[in-house]
């Protein structure tokens, strides 16, 4: 019998800032693990979650290993749907240029809400 892969639309909702709690890091880890199972994965950065994509992060002084570089590897794992809330960025004084240079799509809350509703499962982090 052939193994059939059941592919689901899974969205990881990243709402927490990095470093202050483990959520952001763990969320990214789970995305990488899930990517190994050929699922239709997307990541959505809203609220303080957008800070995970801030460029120029340097965690040397706080004694933890930064994980920002891992975001550059997502493409290699075929995780290409990265959505970022336009409102969350502007609420925090951030623009596209303030974020790391990876392939993201900046969208309105309304557009993100529509994509959220197309998902089979949502994983909040």
């Amino acid at each position, binding site marked *: 019998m052939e193994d059939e892969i059941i592919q689901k639309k899974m969205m990881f909702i990243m*709402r927490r800032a990095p470093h202050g709690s483990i959520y952001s890091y763990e969320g990214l880890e789970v995305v990488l693990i899930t990517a190994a199972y050929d699922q239709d994965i997307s990541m959505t950065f809203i609220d303080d979650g957008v800070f995970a994509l801030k460029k120029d992060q340097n965690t040397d002084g706080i004694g933890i290993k930064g994980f920002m570089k891992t975001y550059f590897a997502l493409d290699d794992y075929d995780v290409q749907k990265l959505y970022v809330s336009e409102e969350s960025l502007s609420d925090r004084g951030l623009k596209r240029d303030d974020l790391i240079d990876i392939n993201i799509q900046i969208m309105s*809350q309304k557009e993100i809400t529509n994509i959220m509703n197309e998902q*089979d*499962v949502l994983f909040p982090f």
Partner: protein
Amino acid sequence: MLHTINKSPLTNNVLYSCINYTKENDPILLYEDAVFVCQKGNKLEPIINNTLKKNPIYALKEDLDARGITNLVDGIKIINYSGFVDLVEQHKVMSWL
């Protein structure tokens, strides 16, 4: 889609986040510390009232009871654990943790 909130909207902006990504008629369920926002007269009552025009809001009875919240903002529906399970069964879920 069912949206659930379990942290107090009076200490963080979770209610706003939830509402921003909610479609009309999507139910919102408040449980654990989120039920504090059901207290009549709290500062977010106008937001609750506004949301109630488009979305049903439920609060978990056991959590209201545990916290002595008896005087509720009008229009919030009280449900028990079994009602919670029914909602989860009927919808996809987004947990605003």
